[in-house]
């Protein structure tokens, strides 16, 4: 812990940046603790989510079939892209009425949450530290992580949402009986001896889909954030090498990260559609 007058060590700096602001005021101790909630992730994801739907709503409110402006144009491009993908993957017009808007929201929302990574890594945490200290708190305890998608709970929350959607559509499309039948007879076939194996495979498939879905996004964003932290650490050495290294590495990584944040948002959206699409197909 940094004390008054002492700059934090490198390890303290990194740990400080990787600790969530939660309702307990200190770092979470257990791996899973349902009594803890990360206030920073919730704050940024809700604010950015509200911004997402506000921007989309703004475009939708003025949408005309005449000549579109630039803003309407870009939103239309997104809508068209998502609608095309949804049409190719989810073969049910009724399901698409909910799934396609969901995919659009997910794409824009995750893209914007990922894009928080491109802000200087110390900007918002330092402002928060100032506010926290002004309120009489110890700035060493003013934790703040601005990238909500670098929070495993947040990404697994979203992938669990997709899992629930898959279960819902499985039951809706195939009926409870049909789905249970499929759980025990796919993928290996209908034979009493194969039932337990089939069922185990199905459970593994659902768990693996959901975990990998959330983990993929989390892993990419967490690693990206960590590299930004390490680059900032390089700059904090306050030497010519450190300064140049920070500028060059920071620029390169930020430019590369533009690709990653877009790609990860796109992948999350596509997998959402794919998993929901799979729920519509009977084996």
């Amino acid at each position, binding site marked *: 812990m940094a004390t008054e007058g002492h700059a934090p060590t490198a390890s303290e700096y990194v740990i400080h940046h990787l600790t969530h602001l*939660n309702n307990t005021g200190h770092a*979470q101790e*257990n*791996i*899973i*603790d*349902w*009594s*803890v*909630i*990360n206030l920073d*992730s*919730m704050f940024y*994801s*809700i604010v950015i*989510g509200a911004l*997402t*739907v506000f921007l*989309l*709503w703004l*475009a*939708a*409110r003025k*949408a*005309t*079939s*005449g000549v*579109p402006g630039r803003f*309407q144009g870009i*939103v*239309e491009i997104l*809508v*068209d892209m998502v*609608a095309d993908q949804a049409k190719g993957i989810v073969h049910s017009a009724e399901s698409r*009425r*909910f799934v*396609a*808007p*969901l995919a*659009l*929201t*997910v794409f824009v*929302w995750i893209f914007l949450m990922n894009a928080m990574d491109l802000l200087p890594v110390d900007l918002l945490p330092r402002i928060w530290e100032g506010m926290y200290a002004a309120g009489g708190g110890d700035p060493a305890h003013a934790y703040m992580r601005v990238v*909500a998608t670098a*929070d*495993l*709970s*947040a*990404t*697994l*929350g*979203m992938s*669990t*949402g997709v899992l*629930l959607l898959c279960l819902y559509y499985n039951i809706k499309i195939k009926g409870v009986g049909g789905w249970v039948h499929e759980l025990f007879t796919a993928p290996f076939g209908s034979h009493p001896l194969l039932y337990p194996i089939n069922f185990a495979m199905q459970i593994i498939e659902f768990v693996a889909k959901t975990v990998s879905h959330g983990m993929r996004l989390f892993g990419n964003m*967490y690693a990206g954030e960590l590299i930004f932290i390490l680059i900032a650490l390089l700059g904090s050495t306050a030497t010519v090498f450190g300064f140049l290294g920070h500028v060059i590495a920071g620029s390169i990584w930020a430019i590369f990260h533009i690709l990653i944040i877009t790609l990860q948002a796109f992948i999350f959206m596509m997998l959402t559609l794919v998993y929901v699409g799979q729920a519509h197909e009977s084996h």
Partner: protein
Amino acid sequence: MNLNATLIAQLVVFFILAWFTMKFVWPPIVKALDERANKIADGLAAADKAKADLALAEKKVVEELRKARESAGDVRTSAEKQASQLIDEARAEASRIIAAAREAAEHEAGAATQRAKEALRDQVAHLAVAGAEKILRREIDAKVHAKLLANLKQELQ
């Protein structure tokens, strides 16, 4: 890297945002896109139709022009025919008039010649009688010699 209640909260936010988009964002934009697609399709169809109409109109114009040219040719032919007929008629009329005039003139000239001959014959008879009077130096009874004179007159013809 810990799991906590953020997961549940994020899940709820996820569905609320998706619901909002489904309710208020997606329908108007998709409607606008569909409407624009229809508009463009209509516009293209109208352009195609206009092009077809133009081609048709051009064809009609060519046809009308051909017809007009044909009827103009007909009119000219009949006019020429009529004109030549008129000329022929006029020419025939003229030659008829000329022939009649010539005939009348010949007739007149013949009559005049006859009259002149008559007059001359009378005068010759008188001259002959007067000459004979002078020769005989005496009065000849005209009534006695009338037959003689008539014979003489006959011979002079």
